[in-house]
């Protein structure tokens, strides 16, 4: 079971959280300005990387807050968790590199 470091509460077991999909996908200020293709990309296009993934989690059975996390999809290690609105932190290469 993953151990997730909620930026508001500290480390808690995965069971207290709900996954929230990819992070840093800002909703366009005026969706009507987007063409069908661009809007389709916003709705469904996801990066799905092998390696570090910026993603949202909600501490649903805790403080209820959404936050962002950097997780390596190859080994489930969390490199960082940070509050919504904060910049995606830079992580050292070694830590972020996906292990083959």
């Amino acid at each position, binding site marked *: *079971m993953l151990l997730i470091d909620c930026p508001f509460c500290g480390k808690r077991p995965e069971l207290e959280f709900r996954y*929230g999909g990819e992070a840093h996908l800002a*909703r366009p200020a005026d969706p*009507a300005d987007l063409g069908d293709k661009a*809007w389709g990309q916003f*709705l469904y296009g996801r990066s799905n990387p092998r390696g570090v993934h910026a993603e949202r989690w*909600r501490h649903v059975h805790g403080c209820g807050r959404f936050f962002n996390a950097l997780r390596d999809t190859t080994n489930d290690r969390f490199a960082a968790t940070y509050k*919504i609105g904060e910049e995606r932190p830079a992580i050292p290469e070694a830590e972020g590199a996906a*292990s083959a």
Partner: protein
Amino acid sequence: MSASCRLNAGGRIDRSRPLRFTFDRKVYEGFAGDTLASALLANGVHLVGRSFKYHRPRGIVAAGSDEPNALIAVGSDVRFTPNLRATQVELYDGLVAQSQNHWPSLGFDFGAVNDVFSPLFPAGFYYKTFMWPKSAWKRLYEPKIRAMAGLGRAPTLPDPDNYAQRHAHCDALIIGAGPAGIAAALAAEAHGARVILCDEQAELGGSLLAERKATIDAKSAPSWLADAVAKLSRSAKVRWLSRTTAFGSFPHNMIGLVERLTDHLAAPAEGRPRERLWQVRAKEVVLATGALERPLVFPDNDRPGIMLADAARQYLLRYAVKPGSRAVVAAAHDEAYRAAIELAAESVEIVAIVDIREDASGPWADRARAAGLPVLSATTICGTRGRHRVSSVEIAPCRPDGKVGARSRLDCDVVLMCGGFTPTIHLFSQARGKLRFSEKLNAFLPDGGAEGIRCAGACRGISGLDAVVADGVAAGEAAARDAVGGRIEAVHAPVPLSEDEDGGRLEPLPHHRSPHRVKAFVDFQNDVTAKDVKLAVREGFRSIEHIKRYTTTGMATDQGKTSNMNALGIAASALDKPVPAVGLTTFRMPYTPVTFGAFAGSARGNLFDPVRVTATHDWASAKGAVFEDVGQWKRARYFPLKGEDMHGAVARECQAVRQSVGIFDGSTLGKIEIVGPDAAEFMNRIYVNPWNKLEPGRCRYGVMLREDGSILDDGVVGRLASDRFHVTTTTGGAAQVLNHMEDFLQTEWSGLDCWLTSATEQWAVIAVQGPDSRKVLERLVDDIDLSSAAMPHMSVREGHICGVPTRLFRVSFTGELGFEINVPADFGRAIWEAVFDAGFSRAITPYGTEAMHVMRAEKGYIIVGQDTDGTVTPDDVGLSWAIGKAKMDFVGKRSLTRPAMTDPDRKQLVGLLPEDPELVLEEGAQIIAELPADAKPKSKDAPIGQKMIGHVTSSYFSAALDRGIALAMVAGGRRRMGETLFVPMPQGVIKVVVTNPVFLDPEGKRLDA
């Protein structure tokens, strides 16, 4: 049979505590400290079961959790437990054990005909045979195969025991309490680490429990062990757990342990948990899990009495049991000699040590020869004899090219085999550690890559007691250093792998017989032979994962502990590839089977999933209500009178609401209070509806979408003040709606000043519906004018009912004049009863969810999730009117203009009237446009060759209309009003007419009655 195989002295059994037990109803005696396996061997019993596929007689092979054959059922009645390994079942007085997988008896088993007909059952036989005729599969083949398959008999009664669960944290978790694990625990403790040490056996010690001459730190092995256990027991930093299996490794160094607490007791204290599941978060993990001995693969290597050499040595030294009196020892590894020498010392006749290796020399062979044991080099085993116990083996010299010479027979009553050792790397591999293949050791060894997990001792290929202990010390120190930090100077380094390691053998022994006729078993538990593995390769399987699944090798309950490496060796040579190029199958948890009880813990029955009941639950229960589950809620479905079925009850309940007044518990509706200066703006963005012009005191039916334009949820929203909304959601949607709202509020619109609070459980909701509802309520409401002028349809007032504060809504989900009384949940029952009493003279009728569904369908009101799925837009269900056309944006708006969302052929909500008014369509039934040529298909499976254009979403018998009605989603449905469509069913095709989905009172006059 007397306990003739027991030595008079030695071993770790307690001869002062004899224990009686039964095996297949026969009474035997053993001692405290015995396992069921050792006690049976002490009584000369080798035949303990029948094999899975061929029903061949089988005996005890191993001495630990790797045992493939001796699966035994223990206990009786409610505590009957099948498929336990006899080698792990501790003996207690009165233990009742039974053999498995035979009929009528272990000695004579009809199923053994499978062995004779085995050419019919090659690997993957069920994919190849039983193909014809097709219809026989379901009626004949499948039931027969199912009846034959399966190991043991599943218990039929509920488990009477309870199971505990615990979380624990430590600096170092050390798995395996053999010499390496104990040394690691002592070292880690000495450096200040908090340690948990666990071992699957009853006693700590591992291999030390079968050592008598070895010394550690100048102490004899038993006294070193006793001192170590005493030291660990005294330390406040150490928790050691025996009878505890580390069964799985999970992310972030969480290890699952299962501790068996009572299975070894004759009479456990009442209420004591049977097992305890530990979820241990360890900063560092040390695996000291040892290595497992491999059998040799030779013809008929599965007779009772053929066992692993080191297992035999353990029976001798730990349990003082002689596994036989005349032994042939089959060696591909020097450990076999050690066993032979120890057994000879206890006057077991060693008929011969048959060594497959070309030159049986070296210190162990020399010692054996010095002890007078006959050693035969370059000799193979071509076969064995003996029906219920091995009686002889056929040996022959063999050349390096595999050619076999003249055969001779050796009489014996036990055969000991040692093919080498396989390091136990299950947990390391589960933790995604990397493995490398050692040609020298013929074994996969841990090679880093698992963070916070290190291996020590035999599980990383170290052998020799001194080396193993030193390696344990080094691992314990390193774990303490990494976990505790600080300045621990590691004084010990991990022991390097020795250069002259002995890897044993991964290939079958050569023999003279036809390879198609012999059975040389690789996987004893699943009855997989060497020829099965070769057959799989011949038939084109290349990946070891596919070979495994096709032959089922390694897929039994032992997960191939004794068989995987041999199967891999055979597959590699058949594929003509080196072993590492073929690779290893994935290790999966659990290491040994874990009971469902341990995983479930206290989460059984009502504790498995919380049961939510409303304030009127007991009242409804007392009235005889039939409940249904809606999510976690129990909701009253209908209230049958004596002798009434559901159909009658629902018709009566509907009629009462339509004609006078009914009362309904709507408390399970989700409720969210949205408060703040920006509440209305938030509502504008999250719902399709406009909210700015909704005055306080008025309600609106709200629809919200996902960003992709599909309907997420709906519900009535009341505006209590300019900055306060009382939102209702569907019963099942409450949590996801709140999550959806919080998501946008927290991550997209964090500038909006408003708050979302779940109020579902704070309010009890009593719906009072029907033409007489106002008259009933007028008698109870103190300070609200209920008249139509003062309180029109879709309005909300705050006031008091029977003195209790209320939010009173005038809303209707039935199409009748109606109210929904919200009162604090604690007053729900009292107000419900007050309303019921006040309506007595008007025959107020409690109604359930079924009548509610019928009445809303008569009005064409949708239920989100029943009439809609994740693809339905507001326009599809006729809700375009709800959309705030002037709004620039709301969640989902942009998606509604995508081309696919405006296609005129999208499925749309319509009503359906079956031509036969008595008929009620089946929900989910498919709809076609043209009458099929053959109106009554010949068989259920015959295709009708038509395109499905829609499906029935809701269907009921309407008492008000005296006919069946249905709602359906039909392609271009609104263009099809009046058309006849068809619903093909197994009984024939049903004609239906498309209508407006509002069946009753389309003008809505009754709402304002």
